[in-house]
């Protein structure tokens, strides 16, 4: 993949064609992800300081790469780390730090704001932070409960991803039916399933 643009539009087109994304938490999973039908690989655990070869490998497989800035080793969630990920040719950055979303976009990457679903009294402030951040996409966790709680969420005006505890085809379908544009999952069985 030679270019990071057009970032958000291409990301959403890939997601629409293949709504199940591979969430990678170990090196062993990468081969399975690259051999699968997924169009986007989410790196949740890795050495953030040496991502270049991994990103290149994923791009050679014609897939996009999203990196979780808050979880990878070696990086602090700040603007310099965002620039570092852009230099590594990452396509999208996930973070719970809303103030970094604009910086991610300025670097030509897709900004994904993580929204943690905890309890009613925290939803309002969480959703307000998401609205302020200007993210391209919101990822809600745990995604498996989205069918239970989507009526409690205000309309966020950005596409939703759902991740966490989505292990079966039925769970993935229920989450998509509840309004998610895609799911992120580490369950390899789902990576090759047709969710239509």
């Amino acid at each position, binding site marked *: 993949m030679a270019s990071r643009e057009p970032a958000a539009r291409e990301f959403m087109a890939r997601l629409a064609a293949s709504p199940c994304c591979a969430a990678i938490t170990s090196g062993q999973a990468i081969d399975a992800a690259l051999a699968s039908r997924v169009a986007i690989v989410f790196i949740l655990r890795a050495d953030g300081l040496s991502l270049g070869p991994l990103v290149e490998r994923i791009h050679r497989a014609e897939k996009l790469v999203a990196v979780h800035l808050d979880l990878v080793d070696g990086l602090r969630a700040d603007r310099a780390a965002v620039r570092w990920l852009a230099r590594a040719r990452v396509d999208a950055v996930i973070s719970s730090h809303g103030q970094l979303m604009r910086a991610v976009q300025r670097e030509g990457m897709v900004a994904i704001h993580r929204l943690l679903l*905890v309890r009613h009294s925290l939803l309002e402030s969480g959703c307000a932070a998401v609205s302020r951040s200007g993210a391209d996409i919101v990822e809600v966790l745990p995604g498996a409960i989205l069918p239970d*709680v989507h009526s409690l969420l205000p309309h966020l005006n950005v596409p939703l991803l759902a991740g966490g505890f989505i292990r079966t085809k039925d769970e993935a379908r229920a989450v998509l039916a509840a309004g998610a544009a895609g799911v992120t999952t580490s369950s390899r069985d789902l990576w090759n399933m047709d969710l239509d």
Partner: protein
Amino acid sequence: MTEPAAVLPAIFVPSGGRDPVRLSDPSVGLLLRDLDLFALQTAAESGRPLLAVDLDSVEGLGADAAAVSFVVERLGIGIVMTRRPALAKRAADLGAFGLAHVFAFDSTGLGRSLDAHPGGPGVGTVISPGPVLTHISPQDRARIPRPLVAYGLIGTPERAVALLRLADAVVVRAEHAASVAAMLRRG
């Protein structure tokens, strides 16, 4: 560590200092959260039984052993929720229920939280958000130290009753508490 003297109710209703909740059902517990130290003291001195506190949400209260001692020994609160496992154990050592707060956003994080859970007599678990319990595998559920409280985003009384098949207690909004209690009585 001894078995706690406190009783764990099946239903909790959250209450902050600014919105005092009045409950007619004495079997429903009151979870004190999102309040400051003075409001916590006032609530504790009200004499209401079955009080629990979300230790991490109390303004002015530290996150250390002294804070746990104050809550349990001085204020007489018998159920302490905290995201710090060592403090949950400390509460249990003092004869209260110490409930380690586990935020279950994905299976990897849940596994790490359970690995760090001290367990043992009187040390249970609060899991948030509550509805995630139904999505946790039976093997992982079996690893969660009891008693187990489902807390957060439990939208309906029916959902609360369903969760009580997997948990020992639920935290529900005040307007749902009576319905949940009635459904439990009907079995």
